[in-house]
Every structure is written in structure tokens, then in C-alpha cells.
């Protein structure tokens, strides 16, 4: 019971930390919206390719923009943690008589909620730009749950780097992982139009399955197999990354 209370307090603190100052949220909102508007305009004629069955390119690209919002918001978790480490604030929490696990779990849950908030804002912009969610409100909730779960899983990578290096630049550099994990997917082209090694790499990338689950909800409909696979992959990724973060945390504390 006490553990849940501690997680609750640290969740609120983590959420405030990740959303202050408000202006700092803009880049993580701007990037997905920018890619969405540019790509859907630049590649609109791709929709006329034989084998492209997703209707408009705007509708096809929308899940990639949602996923990007999740990537960007969860990527900040490592930075927030390294700020706590270098400022000595983590030490202050460490000498409080609390479960040390609550420090990490509070931060992870805060990241999950922030990912949901960012994804919601991007979805509003997508809807205003003419995109739609074919599964309606339940679909929106599904996307948020999946986004929150994947955001937590992804954020644990940055947090592990923060704990192991205790260095802001090293933690910030984890941002480069975003590129292969986002672009070596079906974010820009459907799988049936991809070939060779690239297709194989896309199929090996776990993010592809999360992306396809979101795409199913926004553009195809309730496909239990695809959506279930997205949740399963996000969960498995989370188990691996969070375990690694917890081991890193354990190593970082006396």
C-alpha cells in the first residue's frame, strides 16, 4: 500500500517535471506534426501506386505521426533522470525512507501518461487535417493504451543509459535510436511494396508491429490479430527494457 502511495507521489512529480516548462513540449509536438504534414503532402501520389490499398497517404502516414509523438515524449525520460542524477536530486530521493523501486516506477508511469497526452494532441491535429479513426472513440482509447505502454517501454532505454553513464550528452545521444526504429518500419510504405533486406529488417523491427496495430485501429478496423500482436510486442519490449533499467538502477545505488 505504501509502495503505491510513493509511486503516486513520484508519478505526479515526474509528470510535472516532464511537462515543465510548457514551451519545452513544443519540439516533441512539432516534429511529428511537421513530418505528418510534409510527408502526406510530398508523397500524396504514392497512394496511386498499384498495391497501395490504404486510401490516402495522409491516412496511411497518420499512425507514424502518432508513434513519433510517443517516441519524442518518452525519449525525454532519460534526460529528466540524468538531470536528477547530476543535480543530486536522485540522492535526495535515495536517502528518503521509501522503496527505491517507486522512484523508477513513478517516472515510468509519468512517461506513459505524458505519451498519451502527446499522442492525443497529435491525433487532434491529424483529425483537423482530414484524417480519421475508423474505429471511433474505442479506437482512440486503444491507441492511447498502446501508446502509453510503448512509451513506457521506450523510455526505459533512455533511463538505462542515464543510470549507466550519468551523463547528459550520452543520454541525449540515445535519440539516434529513434531513426532506425521509426523509419525501418512500414511508416512510409506498406509491407507488400517493400523488398529484399529492407523488408526483412522492417519485419524484424518490433516497432513495425506497434505501428501496424495503430494503423489497423485508425484505417482498417478491429483486427484482433494485428492489434493483439502490437500489444504483445510492446509488452515484451517493455519487459526487456524495464528489466534492463531496473538492473541499471540496482547497479547505480549502494
Amino acid at each position, binding site marked *: 500500500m505504501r509502495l503505491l502511495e510513493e509511486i503516486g507521489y513520484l508519478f505526479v512529480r515526474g509528470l*510535472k*517535471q516532464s511537462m515543465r516548462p510548457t514551451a519545452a513540449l513544443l519540439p516533441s509536438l512539432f516534429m511529428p506534426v511537421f513530418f505528418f504534414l510534409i510527408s502526406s503532402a510530398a508523397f500524396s501520389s504514392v497512394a496511386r501506386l498499384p498495391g497501395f490499398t490504404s486510401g490516402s497517404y495522409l491516412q496511411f502516414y497518420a499512425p507514424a505521426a502518432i508513434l513519433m509523438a510517443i517516441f519524442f515524449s518518452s525519449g525525454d525520460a532519460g534526460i529528466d533522470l540524468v538531470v536528477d542524477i547530476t543535480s*543530486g536530486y536522485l540522492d*535526495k530521493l535515495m*536517502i528518503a*525512507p521509501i522503496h527505491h523501486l517507486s522512484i523508477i516506477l513513478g517516472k515510468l508511469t509519468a512517461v506513459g501518461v505524458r505519451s498519451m497526452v502527446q499522442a492525443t494532441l497529435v491525433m487532434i491535429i491529424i483529425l483537423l487535417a482530414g484524417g480519421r479513426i475508423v474505429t471511433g472513440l474505442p479506437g482512440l482509447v486503444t491507441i492511447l493504451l498502446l501508446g502509453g505502454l510503448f512509451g513506457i517501454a521506450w523510455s526505459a532505454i533512455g533511463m538505462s543509459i542515464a543510470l549507466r553513464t*550519468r*551523463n547528459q550528452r550520452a543520454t541525449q545521444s540515445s535519440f539516434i535510436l529513434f531513426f532506425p526504429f521509426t523509419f525501418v518500419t512500414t511508416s512510409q510504405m506498406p509491407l507488400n511494396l517493400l523488398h529484399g533486406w529492407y523488408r526483412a529488417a522492417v519485419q524484424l523491427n518490433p516497432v513495425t508491429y506497434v505501428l501496424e496495430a495503430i494503423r489497423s485501429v485508425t484505417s482498417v478496423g478491429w483486427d484482433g490479430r494485428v492489434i493483439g500482436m502490437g500489444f504483445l510486442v510492446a509488452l515484451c519490449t517493455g519487459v526487456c527494457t524495464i528489466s534492463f533499467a531496473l538492473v541499471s538502477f540496482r547497479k547505480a545505488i549502494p
Partner: protein
Amino acid sequence: MSSSIVQVEELTRRYGDVTAVDCISFDVQEGGFFGFLGPNGAGKTTTMRILATLLKPTSGLARVAGIDVTRDPQAVRKLIGFAMQDVSLDLMASANENLQLLGVLYGMSRRASRARAAELIEMVGLTKVADRWVSTFSGGMRRRLDLAGVLMHSPRLLFLDEPTQGLDPHARRLIWDYLRELNASGSTIFLTTHYMDEADTLCRDLAFIDKGRIIRSGEPAELKASLGGDVIQITFGEEAPMERVQSVLGRLRGAQSLAVHDQTITMTSANGGELVPHIVRELDSAELAPVSLSVSQPSLEDVFVSLVGRSILDDETQLVQGRDPFVEGRR
């Protein structure tokens, strides 16, 4: 009769080949005001971090209120407060938010935490800015808030690591006043500092640490009296041959100790006034002209110089030993 709230026995902490704390032993009495003095990198912070459960010792024993810090750190954490060398606050939160969070994490109800935070914020004179983000605070305001945070749960034992470093004289005096009040109200204070005037003003017991070892401990008055009289300081110009100066003054009868620090000679004597004419005569006949000469009562700085032959603020010392390997490793 008071009992020991801190007991340290043969405590050692190594970082690879570097021994930061080298088999030290000391006690701190409950209700006392204890000063742990030494230059940067002497091992003060490492010792304090071990006692505050942030670091495990390589060997030896450390107890707080009779509890082994390695066996039951959670029990120790409830009893202590630790104001670290660098102020550790959530800069993107207000003063109120910072303190209230600490309160609830230490097991207070939200209401009690709010009330205690308001009380402490008032005590440190920050009521008007209580809802402003800490990032807008000056260094002195942050230090005062940090200190207030440490007091949220009314700890029995307070660790303060260089609490006035970088503060202006007014802010330092404010902090000194808070510390005296806290100590008077029953909290034991364990302070590290390299400001000798601070230790002399506040502490009732002291230990000098250098290169990881405790070199002397006792009450300030007792330590100063151990120098046996007056301190004579003679400063020479940049070009002065200090080895020759040392040799000339070393021959004088009546000087109890002699130490050189940069271009300054520090001597102790049972009667400084009587020795000064002899010093002047000897220097004159050796054609050595000092820039200044003073006779004073000994300070704690003089005690340190007499023990290790250099100043606690010696730049060279800071360069050679100033790297606390723990801090370095963490950055």
C-alpha cells in the same frame, strides 16, 4: 550524560587504487555540534555519504543511533537529514512543491506536510516566493530552501556538507543562526567545512581529516591552546628565497613550530611579543625583508597548518587531492 549518535570504527572506503577514507574512527555525541574539517578531497564527503547510507564502506563499521548503516539503511534514513554540498532541489517545481513532496515521502500526511512546509518556508524567509519555481531563486535562497527540506521530518541527526560554500557573508550568517537554533532545539549537527571561522564559531567538537585520515580531534579551544601561545605570520615578496628564510628563522630559540605556505611563514611561540624583535634582527642581518609581520592568537587554520605543514585552502592541495573520486566517478 550524553551518548554517541554516530560511531565510526576503522572505516575505510577505496575507489580502485585510491583510498578516500583510510581506517578512521570517531564518535559524535547526541545533541552535539560536530565539525569535520579538512581540505577538498580529504575524505569528508565520502565519510558523510557512508553515514547517510548513500555509499557502502569497503570495510569498517558505521553506526547511527546504534544502527549499522549497511545492515538497516531504511531505519537510519528515518533519523537523518542530509544537506549535500551541491543544493539538490527540483528546479522546475515551487518551494512549496519541493518541501511537500519530501514531507509525504517521509510518511507525513498531506495536510501535515503542507503545514510543516509553510512553517519552514517562513523560517527561512521565503514565504513571498513559496509558489515560484526554484529555478528563479538566487544561490542563497536555494541553499536556505534546501536546508528547510532537510528539516521537513525533524531529523535527530543532520548532516551538512559545506552548507555555506559560495554564499555571501550575510547569507552565511543567516544559515549559522538557523543551525544554532536547530542545535539548541535538540538536533545533532554533523558539519563538514573548510571554512575555519565557521567551524570555530559553530562547532563544539572537531576532527581534522587529511588524505583520508583523522589527524587530530578535540574541542576548538583545546586544539588552539595546544599550539601553546601566539601565532606569528611573516609574509615575504614573490622573489624572496623561502628556503633561506626558513633556515634563518629555524635557528631562533623560542619558536615552537614553523611552517611555510607559499610566501608566508607561520610560527608559534609561547610569547610572540618577545620573539618579534629577535625575528626582525635575524632577518635584517640576513638581508631578508618581509612584506608584513603579525602576531595573533591561534586560529583553527593555524592548528591545521601546524599539523600538516600547509593551509587547508592550499591551491596545490586542491589540485592534487581535490578530486573526490566518488564525485568524479559520478559525473
